[in-house]
């Protein structure tokens, strides 16, 4: 079969693009350490979250040096904590959000960032992110899955507290 020389050029170009796409995504996973949200958070009974050791009292729990767990319950139409009172996390720390829903499917997105997961009743979504010492002090939080009539009003806040001002009282422990 004769393949025209120009055709060989753009076939090679297309292959190069595909190889480039795969290479950059591989770099993101291996080099930059980007991970996907998976099901390792496990499952909970969404009807009895108040019996759960952490979801019954959602908030920020210390988990190690500069490592924190934040338990969040999403509901129609807000986050607990997040909406009534902001989620507080210390700057310069690695924070794992454990988010679940007690009614319908919601979304949990830190506005303008890649921190984003679907929140499904009965399932715990976990995402780990790093809050830099010199980073933003406050983030918005929103639901990005249509969850009912007041979905558009479902929002919250994350306050990043400087290490010097962080004290134990901000943790649920």
């Amino acid at each position: 079969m004769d393949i025209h020389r120009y055709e060989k050029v753009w076939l090679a170009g297309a292959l190069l693009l595909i190889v480039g796409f795969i290479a950059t995504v591989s770099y993101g996973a291996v080099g930059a350490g980007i991970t996907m949200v998976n099901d390792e958070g496990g499952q909970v009974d969404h009807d009895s979250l108040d019996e759960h050791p952490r979801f019954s009292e959602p908030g920020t729990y210390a988990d190690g040096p500069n490592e924190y767990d934040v338990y969040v319950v999403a509901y129609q139409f807000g986050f607990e904590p997040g909406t009534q009172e902001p989620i507080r996390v210390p700057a310069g720390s690695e924070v794992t959000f454990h988010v679940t829903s007690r009614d319908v499917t919601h979304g949990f997105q830190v506005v303008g960032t890649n921190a984003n997961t679907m929140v499904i009743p009965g399932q715990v979504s976990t995402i780990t992110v790093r809050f830099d010492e010199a980073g933003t002090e406050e983030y918005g939080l929103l639901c990005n899955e249509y969850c009912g009539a007041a979905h558009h009003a479902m929002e919250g806040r994350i306050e990043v507290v400087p290490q010097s001002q962080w004290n134990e009282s901000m943790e649920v422990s």
Partner: protein
Amino acid sequence: MVAGRNSESDDAATSSDGGGDDGAQPVPDGGGADGAQPVPGRDAIDDEGYAIGSGRSDVVRRIDHDDFDPIGTLVLIAIYMAIVGVMWVFMYFVEFLGGDLTVIG
């Protein structure tokens, strides 16, 4: 295909004999048609208004495989691939990896 069209038009020409109008059909450039054909009848006109068989059916110019030189197409594809490459780098390395918080676990 071409042969089929020719025979079809011959049939049509035959069937339209006696159509009254015996004006000569314009002969295509280089068509090499020996005699003037009668204007085709309605049956020989396709849906788009072309007289079936009126197209040029012989070879006008023969070129070798690699003499075909679509340099404009090559340039367009090169520009397109350059745009895709630049947009990919911008989207992945600037917008995505450069984003503030990123899921790392």
